[in-house]
């Protein structure tokens, strides 16, 4: 089983490594064009451009660049970012913790909340509670990310002044206590976390609710009810377990996507996460940074998807494993 999962995903990984090299270079324009395309950038003379090209090894042949790239992959050294003029590995690891912190916590919150509310809503299907909950959740889900963040920001930082408007911490905070630093980080992360939770909770909710309704209609749930099993056990043990497979897949995809950040919310709250980095990298054609980021994304997302495939039979013993060639087919 493990071997099959690994071989399937290993192949995809190799493919991705190749795409990671070629796709960015297929995009129109390069890093120098990006600098020139900006409204208030410098005027570059031919000499300057030539120097930049040499420095960034953009005048090498594609083959040489590819060899460098593969070599970099193997040694986890992706080179220096064109735009940030900093080693890519350093950049990624500087920004990743911020994203993990806000996107991670909000993913946990939104999954927990979405699953709980979805289960309840499905349980009370066709009662008023379900409909009200669904109205609220879907209305929330229809709000654009940016607007949710903006409204929270206006109310809680601009008008009420409860939370800071931007950044991940107070600039140049004069405190040595880890407690002070932590409180400061939480203070800054609250609004982004709430915004992200609100944005993503509705999709989990709707999936869980619809699955729950389907599971509740199955005969074994009716029979379990006949056995006089208490509501809680029925809901969390019988129903949830049967609705879990699609929810689990969604969870794994979410966890994988966690590392790709949240472009809009990070921008709105000037939060130095990976989403902002990614947007810059793609727009500025920062090849080394794109390579580094995609490498991290590929590794993590594939890992979680492979993990999901590996765990399916554990969650539902009837699954024989998606990669197996069924003999009777």
């Amino acid at each position, binding site marked *: 089983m493990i071997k099959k999962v690994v071989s399937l995903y290993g192949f995809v990984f190799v493919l991705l490594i190749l795409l990671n090299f070629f796709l960015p270079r297929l995009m129109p324009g390069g890093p120098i*064009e990006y600098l020139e*395309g900006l409204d208030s950038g410098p*005027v570059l003379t031919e000499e300057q451009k030539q120097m930049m090209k040499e420095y960034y090894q953009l005048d090498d042949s594609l083959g040489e660049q590819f060899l460098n790239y593969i070599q970099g992959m193997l040694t986890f050294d992706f080179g220096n970012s064109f735009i940030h003029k900093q080693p890519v590995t350093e950049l990624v690891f500087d*920004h990743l913790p911020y994203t993990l912190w806000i996107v991670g916590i909000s993913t946990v919150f939104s999954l927990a909340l979405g699953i709980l509310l979805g289960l309840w809503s499905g349980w009370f299907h066709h009662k008023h509670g379900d409909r009200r909950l669904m109205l609220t959740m879907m209305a929330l889900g229809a709000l654009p990310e940016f607007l949710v963040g903006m409204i929270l920001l206006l109310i809680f930082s601009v008008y009420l002044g409860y939370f800071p408007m931007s950044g991940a911490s107070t*600039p*140049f905070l004069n405190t040595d206590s880890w407690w002070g630093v932590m409180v400061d980080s939480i203070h800054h992360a609250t609004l982004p976390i709430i915004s992200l939770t609100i944005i993503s909770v509705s999709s989990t909710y709707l999936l869980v609710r619809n699955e729950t309704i389907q599971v509740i209609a199955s005969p074994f749930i009716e029979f379990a009810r006949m056995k006089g099993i208490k509501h809680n056990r029925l809901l969390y043990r019988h129903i949830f377990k049967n609705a879990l497979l699609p929810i689990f897949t969604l969870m794994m995809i979410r966890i994988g996507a966690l590392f790709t950040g949240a472009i809009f919310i990070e921008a709105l709250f000037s939060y130095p996460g990976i989403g902002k980095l990614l947007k810059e990298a793609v727009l500025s054609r920062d090849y080394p940074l794109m390579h580094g980021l995609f490498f991290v994304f590929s590794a993590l997302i594939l890992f979680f998807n492979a993990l999901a495939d590996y765990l399916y039979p554990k969650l539902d013993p009837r699954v024989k494993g998606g990669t197996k060639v069924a003999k009777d087919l």
Partner: protein
Amino acid sequence: MKKVLYLLLAAVMVLTAACSPSSENATSTDSSGKKVVRIGWQNSGFPSPFTFDTQGPGGFLRNSFLFDTLTWKDDTGVIPWLATSWEVSSNNLEYTFTLVKDVKFHDGKPLTADDVVFSYDYFKKHSFQWNVDMTKVASVQKVSDTQVKITLAEPYAPFITEIAGKLPIIPKHIWSSVEKPLEYKDNKALIGSGPFTLKNYDSTTGNYQFAKNENYFKGKVTVDEVQYIAVENRMLSLQNNEIDGGMTFNYTEAKKVESLGYKNLKSKPTGSAVRVVFNLNHEQLKDKRLRQAIAYALDRAAIAEKITGNSEVMVGSAGVIPPDSDWYNANVKKYDYNVDQANKILDELGYTKNANGIRDGLKLSVTVNATSQEAELMKSMLAKVGIDLKIQTVDAATFSSAMAEGNFDMTITGHIGLSGDPDFLRLWFSGKAGNSLAGKGVFNNEKFQELANQQLTKLDEKERKEVINQMQDILAEELPTLVLYHRPFYYLYNAKVFDGWFNTAGGIADGIPLTDNKAAFVDYK
């Protein structure tokens, strides 16, 4: 659902009404009694002369806090800085600078003529990132410990502002051993002679903490600390007392914040321009009459007013140089909004209207980098004279490569720096400048190219202006580009924290219309 929204609305409205300027509780000093000024600006990179970010003027300005140049600019124009005076030889090729005595780098080592010579040589090898054309410099020699002679390869009229006023003097004792300056990120890379030292830089968030240089040669530094905070929305952050000053383009926003008790400094000269670039190789647009017809069809005053929200905004001159520049030629051909004139020319050119009033033979597109309201207005205005305009939105890099490949009909681009030295006219149309400035479409006008080279040799301002005036006349007649309007920058700040801001004559260095001039923090007068 509705109820929730109404409640939310009501809450926000009540809060809006109750909102008062938060500047009341702003103090000019922090808890330790230090005078700190916090300015909002995005991350501009590690501010060494080789690694600062060139995506905007921020990097150059952060760098200028740490390093000094031979000359500088303030509200009166060019002023001596590291050099006390300079002399120009009669052939306009040799500049001899006399340096201030006893200038010290942050590490206590003296700044001498050797460092100046070293810097110029070093930057010839490793280019400075901010618009400095070092090919113009032939050689640099030390005359004495306090005198340096710079010899140019050819006469270059804007040398004092464009090179001497921009090139930082770096310490020889540090950089002489640095082979790869772009990778040199040691703290020593930040040792200059400037009014500030960098106490802290958070590369992840992009926040800077500059501390004053107690022994600054030019005068006492009047604040203890300047911080740059990378906030997303500067005006809201200003109201929220997270910064003490910030810049905006938006007139409505500026007025609003001003009404809350903040001071508003409008950039003068306005400094930035939004303009249409025509593809001079385009089958139809290569005819200047079509370009003129388009100029007549565009109500540039309305565009300016709509987009900035301010009726006082300056409409662009057809001669490109903005009306508030010293180099402006007021007598160039004007293209006031005139639909009849535009229709007349278009008819003459044989683009006849069909039954729906659309000129079938004339389908043009305008390529814009990011969402452009100018393009939307242009589309509506050109529709009135029967031109069907398609808007094509692309990102910066695509935009620039489209320009380089001549893969466009028209584009809209915006710049700063038009108020600085007029040499930019030569650069734009020489076919050598940045893609987004002129693209591949070289302006093949012999007379113009001749004048463009001529003005470089005229060190006498009056003579030079004469040439520049002629260049503007040609531009206005030929219209390789059409400036729509000039957009002022508004700097909003809390005057209780710091009130020494001023507009630099012609813009900082090569015309940066921002207020972050280091001279504002130095008592040198």
